């Protein structure tokens, strides 16, 4: 088969709803878009554990501590599973785990804007579980029908675990909403901090070139705006039911079209933060990540060397 024919065949398979496997032929652009998406998703899971990890030692009860610790473990686990997929795709480029982690530390791969921000109160830890995980669940559930089968499979597993994150986040937020005025004020403060970053989280109204190409290849099937609307539609009524206010007067639903309005987040500020790792906590969390990566390098080397020696003895 010639290159053109293979391309036509590939697009026809995708159009008919068939899925692509890691070892199937795929256009270079498809592979590169997948690597970009899954690599970013994987490192965001890992960096996403940091703002919550900060609250594990400070959780208000033992049950909350166990739950938050379990959630942090899940996020790191999701990062591991997703990086494995990115590694399989990167095999033709000869790039493995070390290279993909170095990309994070050297600023060559971005992670989600929300994980560059501070979580100053326990309510922030709760609102991360409620709104940030809520947004992540929406984007991940929308990827369950991705044309790339290994990603769709792994997301099925990840979304099943996110079910606990969702209930946990709600539980923390509900407890604060049912609490005393000081707790309700703390909750409102956290909502005020996280609302606008969540509007940025879903990306610009008009999508960038690579997002459009991902739609073309059915790597993703929903636009940024569709996902943002699903999010607003789901969370605004719930926040209002809790008696919390939405820190954006433009958030109103058009009664005729059902479309929600919102004030544009500061696109330049968040883009700069993501691109240059210059958010309030970007550098401190990357430093922790670097400590874990370089500080334990000798352990990885020692284990590899010991295994090689054992293998030689056994042979």
């Amino acid at each position, binding site marked *: 088969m010639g290159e053109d024919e293979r391309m036509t065949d590939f697009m026809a398979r995708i159009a008919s709803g*068939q*899925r692509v*496997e890691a070892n199937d032929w795929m256009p270079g652009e498809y592979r590169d878009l997948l690597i970009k998406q899954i690599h970013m998703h994987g490192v965001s899971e890992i960096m996403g554990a940091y703002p919550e990890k900060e609250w594990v030692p400070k959780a208000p009860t033992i*049950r909350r501590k*166990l*739950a938050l610790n*379990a959630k942090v473990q899940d996020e790191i686990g999701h990062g591991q599973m997703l990086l494995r997929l990115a590694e399989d795709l990167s095999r033709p480029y000869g790039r493995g785990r070390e290279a993909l982690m170095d990309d994070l530390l050297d600023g060559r791969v971005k992670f989600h804007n929300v994980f560059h921000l501070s979580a100053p109160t326990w309510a922030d830890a709760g609102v991360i579980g409620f709104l940030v995980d809520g947004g992540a*669940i*929406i984007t991940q*559930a*929308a990827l*369950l*029908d991705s044309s790339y*089968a290994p990603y*769709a*499979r792994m997301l*099925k*597993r990840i*979304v*099943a675990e*996110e*079910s*606990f994150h*969702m*209930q*946990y986040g*709600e*539980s923390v937020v*509900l407890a604060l*909403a*049912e609490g005393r005025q000081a707790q309700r004020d703390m909750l409102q403060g956290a909502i005020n901090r996280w609302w606008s970053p969540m509007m940025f989280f879903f990306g610009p109204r008009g999508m960038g070139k690579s997002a459009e190409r991902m739609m073309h290849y059915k790597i993703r099937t*929903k636009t940024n705006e*569709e996902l943002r*609307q*699903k999010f*607003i*539609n*789901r969370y605004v*009524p*719930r926040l209002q*039911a*809790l*008696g919390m206010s939405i820190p954006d007067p433009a958030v109103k*639903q058009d009664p005729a*079209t*059902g*479309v*929600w309005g919102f004030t544009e987040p500061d696109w330049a500020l968040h883009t700069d933060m993501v691109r240059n790792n210059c958010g309030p906590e970007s550098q401190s969390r990357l430093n922790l990540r670097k400590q874990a990566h370089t500080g334990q390098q000798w352990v990885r080397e020692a284990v590899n060397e010991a295994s090689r020696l054992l293998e030689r003895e056994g042979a």
Partner: protein
Amino acid sequence: MPDAGEYRVYEVFFQKDATDFHTNVGSLRAANPEMALQMARETFFRRDDAYDIWVVPQDSIFASPHDAAHLPVRGMDKRYRLPSGYDNAPHWKRFKAQAMTIEEVADDMKTRGKGGPS
């Protein structure tokens, strides 16, 4: 190493659908991987469809000892880790709002369009 004169044992894994993971269905003996794959089709998939089949030499599998000390067991209450460990519905009700489930969010993603009624 296989016994002299004996075919090697292969474990058979199959994937029912593109979005399912591989599951072990049993094992068989065969002279080589190609034969093992052919035998797997004959033995396990005379009726059922399969999206993908793997055959793996049994001695390539390093398994956990089959006892409580080596396997993940529910040694303690792990409800804090499970969605069922949280009963948020009565709390939402107090605020006159409905509880959410992840299944409902996943279904919502299958529908097109904007927000729509909540």
